[in-house]
């Protein structure tokens, strides 16, 4: 069966299987600190994937996704810290709150696109931040909420790591199904030309609302996982910095691909950790990375790799393979052809 697949597909499968194998074996290979970092990178990767679903597939770059994730985190934190409810209640309230906020934000933003969408989502995310700074009796303001303990089954760091790995793999699979479904095609249609989608009879506002909800669901999950990883939540979880970091991860890895955000997440988490050992100016470096990526590498790492893969195939004279690769979805530029 493997023989019938093209070389590109085989290479991809082998790489993916290798990555998953390394992922599973990781707690045996590296010390606790690095497993913790990998857990963080996986969660942020999931968060970034939810941004990519909107930004890469639907062409709607969101700058407020951290607001949704943080709302879910606050739901968990409030139930744990202020109410003292059980884990099931914590998670259900977190889910409900994340989805509720997604629905409100989606309904507000569904008629907008382009930069207007970015501005609206930015304001939305920052308002979650502002509210969590002011609603002291619920959120504890800058002191945040502590005392959020993981369920005992996944209490230890390696147990939690494997749990996160499992959730992220399942979510990636679900996202793969979503973007390859007819709904996924309609979502890509929004990116290519909303006007034409409307001509075809699609209710584009409703489509946007749906995709916003799907993305919001995955952001909600990442928010719940993150609050259990840190066992703490504070307003910075909702800040534009968090949202923008997710966007940067997606672009750095390769917008419009599912693996891109994850690659970007691992690179940035590693980068941040190395850098903060030597100097305190992480925001500056993050900002500069942003500027450099936007100016020189909008298709990200996946874009660069697939470009050189393409060149290698051409040198080898594998023509039928080339047309196969050309048909596949690569990373997309930020700007769709219509608005450029």
């Amino acid at each position, binding site marked *: 069966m493997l023989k019938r697949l093209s070389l590109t597909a085989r290479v991809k499968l082998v790489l993916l299987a290798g990555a998953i194998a390394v992922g599973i074996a990781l707690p045996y290979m590296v010390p606790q600190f690095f497993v913790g970092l990998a857990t963080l990178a996986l969660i942020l990767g999931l968060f970034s994937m939810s941004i990519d679903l909107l930004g890469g597939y639907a062409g709607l770059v969101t700058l407020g996704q951290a607001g949704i994730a943080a709302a879910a985190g606050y739901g968990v934190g409030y139930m744990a810290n202020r109410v003292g409810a059980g884990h099931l209640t914590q998670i259900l309230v977190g889910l409900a709150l994340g989805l509720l906020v997604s629905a409100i934000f989606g309904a507000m933003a569904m008629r907008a696109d382009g930069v207007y969408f970015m501005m609206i989502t*930015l304001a939305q995310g920052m308002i979650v931040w502002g509210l969590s700074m002011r*609603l002291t009796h619920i959120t504890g303001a800058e002191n945040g909420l502590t005392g959020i303990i993981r369920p005992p089954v996944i209490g230890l760091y390696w147990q939690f790591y494997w749990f996160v790995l499992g959730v992220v793999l399942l979510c990636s699979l679900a996202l793969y199904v979503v973007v390859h479904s007819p709904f996924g095609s309609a979502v890509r249609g929004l990116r290519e030309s909303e006007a034409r989608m409307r001509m075809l009879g699609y209710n584009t506002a409703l489509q946007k609302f749906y995709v916003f909800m799907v993305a919001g669901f995955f952001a909600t999950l990442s928010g719940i996982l993150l609050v259990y990883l840190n066992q703490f939540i504070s307003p910075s979880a909702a800040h534009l910095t968090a949202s923008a970091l997710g966007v940067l991860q997606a672009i750095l890895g390769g917008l419009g691909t599912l693996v891109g955000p994850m690659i970007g997440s691992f690179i940035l988490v590693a980068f941040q950790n190395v850098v903060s050992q030597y100097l305190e100016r992480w925001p500056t470096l993050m900002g500069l990375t942003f500027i450099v990526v936007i100016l020189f590498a909008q298709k990200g790492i996946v874009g660069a790799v697939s470009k050189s893969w393409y060149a290698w195939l051409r040198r080898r004279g594998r023509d039928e393979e080339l047309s196969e690769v050309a048909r596949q979805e690569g990373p997309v530029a930020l700007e769709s052809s219509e608005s450029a």
Partner: protein
Amino acid sequence: MTEGRTAEAKRWRWGQAAALLVGLGILVWWILSKMTWRSFLIQALNGLSFGAVLFFLASGFTLIFGLMRITNLAHGGFYLVGAYIGISMMALVGNFLLALVVAAVAVMFLGLFTERILLRPIRGMEKPEVLLTIGLTFVLGDVSLAIWGGDPTPVPIPQVLTGPLTFGSFAYPRYRLFVLACAIVVGAVLFYVDRKTRIGAIVRAGVDDREIVAALGINIQAVFTGVFMFGAFLAGFAGVIGGGFLSVLPGQDFEILLFALVVVILGGLGSLPGAVLGATLVGLIDSFGKALVPELAFFTIFAPMALILVVRPQGLLGRAG
């Protein structure tokens, strides 16, 4: 459009305006039932003076967007840098007017650098432009933190403007009245330049159709740069003026940006009258909201924004499309 439909649209507009007025009346009546006339007046002036600072920011933001379609999210960063330069200049020379001018001009050159060096390679790519300006905001905020530290400090204000101004038994801080007066003057100048002068005509024509303006032999690139620099100038100006009564501290770049965004979303992106209306509304809503429901400080600006986006997505005075 036929005659009948125009009349109908007019009637619809009048209906909207009437509904708005009635709603506003009820709101004012409700607020007055909660507070005395004196505190009502104080809150209104507080709101208007905050709105004045928002107007400086939002007008530059909206002009840049209207003409170049660039969404300059670094405007909050420009504000912060302007405020900090103002503080340093006050410490250095102690002249408020000089500090104001130097800070605004310095930020203007920051704008020149941003437009010419950073944004030029990705001209016309709207989303990358937005993201780049966010990256720039992080850099500006963090570098400011490294230079000026993290303690909240106000921009020192001159002796003449400190203390209250009294009208009979009513006293109100002079400085805030000065800010309000500044906004009125700047607003008047902006409207005059926009409506009555050649440069205003070029900018307005550029908003409508950049290619035709360029084809008429006008150096549209120079106009772009000029407007961008002017917007940055206003942001630096706003930083010093606003820093006089809102303390300057790290993170304020994003907070003030949020308010400016709500202003343009409410008023309508690209519209100067929209910036005036939006800034007034947001200032007043924020001020009365803080006084009446202090817990919901941010929700009070969120709710109207949500309402506007559902009812009139292009903003109150924005053009559809």
